[in-house]
């Protein structure tokens, strides 16, 4: 059984990837780290993602070992620069 998640890309990531979101199917039990590996494994342009990027799951900053569930919104957060 696979786990569909919605990934979001902002700012420099979006410019670089040319997309602001992407639906990804992960294996059951997958974590944030597995999603990062899956994307980086696709090669250019996704291989510019850091191995340990800042990520938010459902609007909360998450650890890499956080497990993902079906329908989760996973955002890749480049270094922030508000204010």
């Amino acid at each position: 059984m696979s786990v569909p998640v919605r990934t979001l890309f902002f700012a420099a990531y979006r410019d670089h990837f040319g997309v602001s979101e992407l639906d990804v199917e992960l294996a059951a039990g997958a974590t944030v780290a597995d999603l990062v590996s899956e994307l980086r494994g696709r090669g250019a342009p996704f291989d510019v993602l850091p191995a340990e990027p800042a990520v938010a799951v459902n609007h909360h900053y998450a650890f890499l070992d956080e497990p993902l569930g079906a329908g989760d919104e996973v955002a890749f957060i480049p270094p922030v620069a508000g204010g």
Partner: protein
Amino acid sequence: MYARVSTEVIDAVDVLARVGSEQDGASLLFLGVVRNHADERPVSGMRYDAYEEMASEVLRAIAEEAAQTLGTDRVAVVHRFGELAVGEVSVAVAVSSPHRAESYEASRYVIEEIKKRLPVWKKEHYTDGESTWVEGQIPPVTTGSEA
């Protein structure tokens, strides 16, 4: 308490008016404004992008944390996104408290936490026509504010 992320022009007087009470001897209003330069390079404007839904939640969490410092719920903060011209306000933070020390501390806390955690990015437009994303801060990864 008032926390909002919006594309609308920020009305600083309105933000200030959201704090203050008869118990409070001090009010403090901080405004972040788009400068005409970055280091030595002339800037013509700035584009702010936001992860809007998350930014709203994080801004509210920051305001709630500041309220703990303040000892009052008199915190109002608005962060703008979209295209901003030089001189326009990007963020307004108003606080009030019985004594001034708490207002200074809470005001500073809000703006420093915004810089660390708020999922907002800015792209500087230079007068020579180039644009670049401003180098930001890597947000501290936590288990989330609900944990």
